[in-house]
């Protein structure tokens, strides 16, 4: 039996038994995002000769967060709702060499995690944030999210959502992240390219991936993936096409000081026996 090429990065079995399948609902975009992320990680490991032990996956709570739990053949942390970036900051202070991938969702980042999100970007800490935006609280039963469009019916907006949605990419860019991109689960190659770039980027890389939640939108995964393609327009062609479509692509790619890099200068002013390079 030939296995899926990325299964070698997952723990199908553990010493105490079966760990798979993933807990995701059939056709959920989050599983695809894990697939794409592992392709990007594999590319960075092989091309940049970075050992598997340097990678660290951190997730909060929600559907996106279940991508870590007990599946990954890497160091991983399935932690507190919204606090991934505070935890990531801690790990980076302990070991600035970590290649950290944060799996988070639109609620985990844009709602409860909002404060930590903007501060991580402001500090430009060296982390790759993979934000799976399905526009709803999936795990808890289809409640409204900060990215739910105005007018949408959800289990907590039965009469239509009256609140404007966040543009998470603009938020990240304004707060100071050095690399910001948005794709959808229907753009596998672009997602892999951006995550690879993010991993190689010094500083905060925020990659938002519009994703389908078939259960709470009462639609099929296939139909939703097609919609994700049709309702988005790549930034380079923005001028020709009209309004109404969501912009995708890489929005900013700056070279800015990374937090640990700057802090290392503070340390270097003192001579440490072992600190002297």
């Amino acid at each position, binding site marked *: 039996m030939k296995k899926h090429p990325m299964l070698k990065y997952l723990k199908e079995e553990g010493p105490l038994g079966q760990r798979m399948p993933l807990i995701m609902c059939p056709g959920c975009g989050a599983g695809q995002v894990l697939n794409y992320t592992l392709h990007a990680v594999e590319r960075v490991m092989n091309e940049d000769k970075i050992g598997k032990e340097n990678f660290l996956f951190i997730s909060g*709570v929600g559907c996106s967060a279940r991508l870590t739990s007990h599946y990954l053949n890497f160091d991983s942390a399935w932690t507190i709702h919204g606090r991934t970036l505070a935890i990531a900051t801690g790990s980076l202070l302990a070991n600035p060499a970590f290649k950290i991938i944060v799996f988070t969702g639109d609620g985990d980042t844009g709602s*409860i995690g*909002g404060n930590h999100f903007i501060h991580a970007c402001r500090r430009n800490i060296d982390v790759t944030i993979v934000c799976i935006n399905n526009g709803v609280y999936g795990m*808890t039963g289809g*409640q409204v999210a900060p990215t739910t469009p105005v007018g949408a019916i959800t289990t*907590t907006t*039965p009469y239509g959502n009256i609140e404007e949605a966040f543009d998470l990419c603009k938020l990240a860019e304004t707060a100071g992240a050095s690399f910001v991109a948005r794709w959808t689960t229907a753009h596998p190659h672009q997602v892999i390219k951006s995550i690879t770039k993010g991993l190689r980027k010094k500083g905060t890389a925020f990659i938002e991936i519009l994703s389908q939640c078939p259960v709470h939108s009462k639609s099929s995964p296939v139909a939703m993936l097609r919609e994700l393609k049709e309702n988005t327009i790549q930034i380079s062609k923005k001028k020709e096409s009209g309004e109404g479509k969501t912009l995708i692509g890489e929005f900013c790619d700056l070279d800015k000081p990374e937090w640990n890099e700057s802090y290392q200068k503070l340390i270097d002013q003192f001579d440490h026996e072992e600190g002297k390079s």
Partner: protein
Amino acid sequence: MSKEMKAHNTNKRLHNVHLLKAGEYYLQGSQACIEGAIMAGCRVYGGYPITPASEIMEYASRRLPQVGGRFIQMEDEIASASLLIGASWGGAKALTATSSPGFSLMQEAISIAIMSETPMVIIDVQRPGPGQGYITASQEDVMQARWGHHGEGSIIALAPSSVQEMFDMTIEAFNLSEQWRTPVLVMAEEPVAHMRERLLIPPWNEIEIIERKKPQDLGIMPEDYLPWGHDIVAPMANWGEGYSVNFVGLVHLEDGNITKYSPQMHYDCIERLLRKIEGNVNEIARIETEFLEGCKNLVICYGCVARTALEAVIEARQEGGLDVGYVRLTTLWPFPHEKLRDIVGNVNTIFVPEMNLGMMKHPITEALRDRSEKIVSIPSLGVLHSPEYILSKIYEEIR
């Protein structure tokens, strides 16, 4: 008060046309809780999704606009609890529901609500912990309910065990919060929030609803008003009523002045908060009992575990021929030490079945240590005890 302000005061039951008509319903505990809140006059709900309490919020989002109330999903639980403080002083009865991880996040807001004597109600549909724990039944927050907030002061916590009590106790919680100017916690569990059962709703005008004591009603003018004075439970002027109330979280004099600090003033300020609740435990706390006459053994329980415990006690008496009594703590906090001592004689064994590893067992032991040779925990984590399990423990000890 300006006309708009009066219309805006959502505390009055303006739209009672949408209140549930008196009669028999078959509702989920989560729904009964919101219907109770609405009957009590609650017109502001702020919450955040968390399993297993999301159903309460979802039902609130549907029902509150129908009765002229306002619902909002906040960015997290800290925001939700903070919202209750603003809403309460803004003149509304305000509610949120969460589960254990969210309940931890709310503790700071609860603490300042205790200090500022802010009426508000929080439903905690408990789930196992620590950390994310699991999403099923639990009673592991009962100590956090009393001791989770930083600092001194006490709190009122009720423990429902049926859909009817999710309705009745939410009303009772609002009444207690208004009467004693304090946050009140309804310590529910997943089974009672999700089960469906018969619910009897009385005519809305026959339900006793308590509103906060107002300085206006006592003829106290704004210039003489002491937001934290006049009586052990101070009258409460809402913002927007022209009383220029300075809400403070610091140790304060009865008029809110925080500059005249002295250890004595500090003691008086805080000791009153504690005495207000603990000193009135006999009026606040309620206990239910069955088969206590001359029983040699006793089961003390609370919440939905009480349903299993009563079934086990009845079976132990009928089939096992054992004389086992039954006590249910309807109110967890303030803990009714005296009431317990009044009704419990000398017994051999007290069983305390809890969906934790032994928490209410501590105040129970403190109250009844000299009345029983043994006090035995019957722990269960993440699942409601089955009658067989409780019976096996009883037989193990008594046979």
